[in-house]
């Protein structure tokens, strides 16, 4: 069907004027968009207040659905388990045996660790999370990876604080509204986390690639010591993340490092903990970094 010809206004003065005004407004809109875009590209934090208010307004609706998400994922897991139960059972039994042995070893190591730390005069300090909150949702169509968190400045959440799930690091808080906040996920292309390998002194940077994987860049170049399956944890460098939080496991080697899979899949996490910044002196560095990352 041919569309009604909205461009032809006929002899009506009113129609002619409103048509003309429409085009003027459309052009002005495009121009305003270009200006706003330029501002937000040069100063990424410029509109964070506006975004925080918007997500505060819409967050309660999202929180309702977050429960449904974790439930449905459980359902799919149950269905898949029904078909794979036999082989999985055998594999799990074997894994359990090995895990028991490792656990005993870990106990021994912990004892030794405690003894050595006592010798050095270090105190074991427990980090208490600032807040426990729900991951509400994430950007689903943009190449930037952000998630929305159901806690804000009213709960003590500040920009820069690390966010972790029981399985490992998820990201860090970028903007905090009063009841909700935006989290920069590890996989975002602007996210950069200093990591080290669990065994041996291999230090690297974990850089997001926006497709669910991280690129590990070695700090010391030379022969690539990484093997597939190596687990990387935060190194504590930079003072933002406390050392020893699990980050990723290497899946594919390349020339200057490896491609790694993130251990804490944000899709499978319901509740996350927001930790305080490990070294508060790093706050200045963090906010400078944030200003760069926030776009």
């Amino acid at each position, binding site marked *: 069907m041919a569309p009604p010809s909205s461009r032809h206004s006929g002899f009506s003065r009113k129609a002619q004027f409103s048509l003309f005004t429409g085009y003027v407004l459309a052009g002005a809109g495009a121009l305003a*968009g270009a200006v706003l875009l330029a501002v937000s590209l040069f100063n990424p934090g410029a509109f964070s207040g506006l975004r925080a208010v*918007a997500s505060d307004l819409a967050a309660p609706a999202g929180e309702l659905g977050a429960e449904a998400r974790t439930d449905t994922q459980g359902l799919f897991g149950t269905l898949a388990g029904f078909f794979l139960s036999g082989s999985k059972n055998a594999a799990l039994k074997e894994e359990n045996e090995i895990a028991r042995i490792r656990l005993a070893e870990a106990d021994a190591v912990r004892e030794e660790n405690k003894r050595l730390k006592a010798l050095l005069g270090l105190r074991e300090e427990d980090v208490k999370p600032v807040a426990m909150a729900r991951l509400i949702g994430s*950007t689903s169509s943009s190449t930037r990876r952000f998630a929305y968190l159901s806690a804000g400045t009213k709960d003590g959440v500040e920009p820069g604080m690390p966010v972790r799930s029981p399985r490992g690091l998820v990201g860090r808080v970028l903007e905090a509204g009063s009841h909700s906040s935006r989290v920069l996920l590890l996989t975002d292309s602007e996210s950069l986390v200093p990591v080290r390998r669990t065994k041996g002194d291999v230090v690297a940077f974990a850089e997001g690639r926006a497709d669910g994987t991280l690129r590990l860049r070695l700090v010391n170049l030379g022969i690539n010591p990484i093997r597939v399956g190596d687990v990387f944890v935060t190194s504590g460098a930079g003072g933002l993340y406390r050392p020893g939080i699990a980050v990723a496991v290497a899946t594919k080697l390349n020339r200057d490092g490896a491609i790694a899979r993130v251990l804490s899949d944000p899709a499978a996490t319901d509740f996350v903990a927001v930790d305080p910044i490990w070294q508060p002196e790093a706050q200045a560095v963090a906010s400078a970094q944030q200003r760069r990352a926030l776009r």
Partner: protein
Amino acid sequence: MVEYRSTARRDRYGSQINRAHSPLIALVVPWASIVLGSLMPLFPLISSMPLLPPMGFMLFIAWRLVRPGLLPVWAGLPLGLVDDLFSGQPLGSAILLWSLILLALDQFEARFPWGGFAQEWLLATVVTVAYILASAFIAGTGVRDMLSLLAPQLLLSVLLFPIFGRMVAFLDRFRLRRFRTVG
């Protein structure tokens, strides 16, 4: 016996007796549906890579193509602003791109006023692919890994467009539905 036209009492928008269109619903439904699509990032779905089609944008294009003339030419400004607040893109990118796309579609429509299913789908494909690539470029994705990263999303968006068109047609019937009037 008197014969009645079957459409005299009912048409596709419901019974005509003691019922009337609601001006509020007729005005609000297109805008509200697009805003709801833009709120997609707050829905319970967390993905580690961009996979879903940009819902707000798809509904926006579908409304424009299914019902030309319903959205004013300047609609990209307010709707793009709402989309920018939640999409994670730098603020202003959707305002700019949506406004430009509306102006471009307007020009296209003036030259090819007779559309069909295939032509509209092709048009939507071109516009959607251009929009997704431009958005990724604005967000700072490297040109090298752009295609491997965006291929699933592009494919899904293009294939799903007719369904968005159907959805909008359904919403359009609801928009013009007659509701019982009191008195």
